């Protein structure tokens, strides 16, 4: 029998891999694995840059200067970080339930649409804070319903959540275009540049000198804490994980896999919807076609890189947000295409997947 060293009880729960039947067993290897992933990603990107004749150090300095080395720039980073973290938290639920929720992108969009539906009405004589809270609630409901729809399609229609999600993403994109070019267009103008700006008092408050709305950041962090609590310290979280690990065994434990998966889709979609709500209320102050900023897809990378574990999600989101914000510097300072940051993100994820897969093979060969 393979020996397994006794381990501190508290971290067992975080150890999880929903998509594969056999999971990492040894925490001891965790640091080593992390270093291998980091070195591999760094090496790949550096080699690529050297091949293009660009100094990796220059890129690193440029990215850092554009993201974390001033409070203002860090504010930009945080304004990307907040919605990205929300979408990633949402995906934690679905990934741990064993669902590839590709539809997260559409859930972000629906959240944005739902929040806009309220915010474009103006403050309606109510305190702006109250209207904003209601808008965030609507965003959660909008995204949650979209998530529920994908879950329902899977459960009732037998549509794999990947295809259902993709389809719903297209529907969401069509819906937002229709709204912006149709019923919600600017007075006299039908353009891709979005709806009218919301009334000024309905912009989520950003103090002078800040570049991120404190409420947005607080909402994202609260969502992270709540997700961590739900996933790691409740019976519900354990059931979600159990269903993700082995839906076949769930009925024996009186767990309804379909219902649990649906709950995960609703919560996950709701959190993604909140991300969309922040995009309209705190970042763009209007609805525009690319309102999701691709954060849904980016969150997929985050959660894959985190291997569906809770603790690495926030740091990875911060890293990705820093890359995205810092990347603006590439064209300004170096006349390089800012898509380079996408290459760095992709390298990280591929390295992580490679290392996970490689370790798995090693373990199976043993």
């Amino acid at each position, binding site marked *: 029998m393979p020996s397994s060293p006794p381990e*501190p009880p*508290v971290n067992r729960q*975080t150890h999880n891999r929903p998509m594969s039947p056999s999971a990492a067993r040894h925490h001891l290897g*965790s640091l080593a694995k*992390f270093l291998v992933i*980091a070195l591999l*990603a*760094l090496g790949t990107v550096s080699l690529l840059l050297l091949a293009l004749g660009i100094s990796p150090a220059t890129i*690193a*300095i440029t*990215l*850092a*200067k*554009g993201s*974390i*080395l*001033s409070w*203002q720039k860090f504010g*930009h980073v945080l*304004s990307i970080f907040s919605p990205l973290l929300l979408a990633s938290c949402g995906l934690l639920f679905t990934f741990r339930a064993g669902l590839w929720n590709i539809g997260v992108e559409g859930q972000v969009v629906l959240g944005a649409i739902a929040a806009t539906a309220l915010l474009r009405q103006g403050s309606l004589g109510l305190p702006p804070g109250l209207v904003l809270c209601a808008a965030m609630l609507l965003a959660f409901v909008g995204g949650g319903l979209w998530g529920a729809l994908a879950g329902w399609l899977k459960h009732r229609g037998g549509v794999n959540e990947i295809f259902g999600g993709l389809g719903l993403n297209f529907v969401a994109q069509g819906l937002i*275009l229709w709204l912006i*070019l149709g019923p919600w*267009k600017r007075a*006299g*103008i*039908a*353009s*891709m*540049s*979005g709806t009218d*700006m919301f009334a000024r008092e309905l912009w989520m408050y950003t103090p002078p000198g800040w*570049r991120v709305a404190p409420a947005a950041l607080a909402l994202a962090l609260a969502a992270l804490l709540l997700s961590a609590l739900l996933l790691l310290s409740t019976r519900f979280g354990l059931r979600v994980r159990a269903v993700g690990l082995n839906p076949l065994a769930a009925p024996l434990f009186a767990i309804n896999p379909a219902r649990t998966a649906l709950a995960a889709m609703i919560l996950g979609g709701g959190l993604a919807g909140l991300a969309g709500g922040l995009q309209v209320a705190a*970042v*763009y102050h209007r609805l*525009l*076609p*690319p*309102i*999701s*900023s*691709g*954060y849904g897809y980016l969150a997929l990378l985050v959660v894959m890189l985190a291997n569906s574990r*809770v*603790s*690495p999600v*926030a*740091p*990875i989101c*911060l*890293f990705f947000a*820093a890359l*995205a*914000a810092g990347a*603006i*510097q590439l*064209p*300004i*300072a170096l006349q390089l295409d*800012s898509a380079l940051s996408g290459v*760095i993100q992709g390298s990280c994820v591929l390295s992580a997947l490679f290392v996970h897969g490689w370790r798995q093979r090693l373990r199976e060969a043993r």
Partner: protein
Amino acid sequence: MKQFTTCVRALALSCLLLGAGAGAAAAADYPFGLLMVGPANDHGWSQAHFEAGQVMEKTLPGAKMLYIDKVNPADRQGITVPMLVDDLVSKGAKLIIANSDDMKDGVREAAQMHPEVKFIHVSGDDALTGKAGANLSNLMGRMEYGKMMAGFVAAMTSQTGKIAYLGPLVNAETRRLAASAYLGAHYAWTKVLKKPEAELKFKVSWIGFWFNIPGVTSDPTLVTGSFFDSGHDVVISGIDTTEALVVAGQRRKEGKAVWAIPYDYRDACSAAPDACLGVPYFNWIPGYTKMIGEAIEGKWQQQFLWLGPNWAAINDLQTTSVGFMPGKALSADNEKALGEFQKALAGGLNLFTGPLYFQDGTPFLSAGIVATDEQVWDLTQLLKGMEGASK
């Protein structure tokens, strides 16, 4: 505890990857920023701005351009105009040019955040409407004239009498320009060729944005193709890129008698010279020279600058803000007629003169009345005789 250490590890990686340290950018006396909505090499709107900016670097002492292109939410996801302005300002930019109507809200917001920095919003009207602070000016060229010339040569050349206008999104500016092209065509058709008004067809289709965004806008290549398929033989492009001309060039190779008129950029005809009747273009050198020059000398003042062509030398880059470069496909006779038309415009011919009606039949200008600048700038509908959506 374990979770905490994982966090620390990940943060450490971020730092490792990002590196640390600071390098000072070479300081110029007067760095200015340019935010372009499209790619800097689009052979259209953005490239015209980019090249004017390069000229400023040579002609204005101390001027140094910082630029970011593809500034639109589809190309730069999650990035807003105020964020980019922050970046340019942190690089030392003292004046920032934003070249798209689409950036209106963002520029206004950024101007409030950075009162010490000067802003030029190209194609906006905040300085006119008073929505902006004193550090925000507007600059625009009177492209109406360019579009009238485009419409003029289109009607002079057309064999079918069916002219199409490939529009971007619908707003006051684009309605104004499409209407100008129509008025130019109408003038050529009825006054020069003396053909019946009813035989002139002028159709406008809007693709949804200033350039093609796959999956989001209509595809201008397909739209242009369907124009030609439905009997239109001249397409006037109102978008920033050259798809209309490219398609016309392909159709000509297949033996069709079709033409196109691109937009925005002086050398735009080079994409398919044989099909190009000419191009109305913006030349930002005079406007930039005036506004940035004043700013460098400390004489900045808020203004709404709407600059027209230099009628004496319509293609002189130092002095004209709007030009029309005749294309290879324009016949010598028609080029002569165009010269006459330009003379008439220079001599005071104003095509925005009544009687003119809106598309829905309501009167716009009664007989003999000349439109004010504001009426032209804020044109609320397409004109009677034009086919296509007004909103």
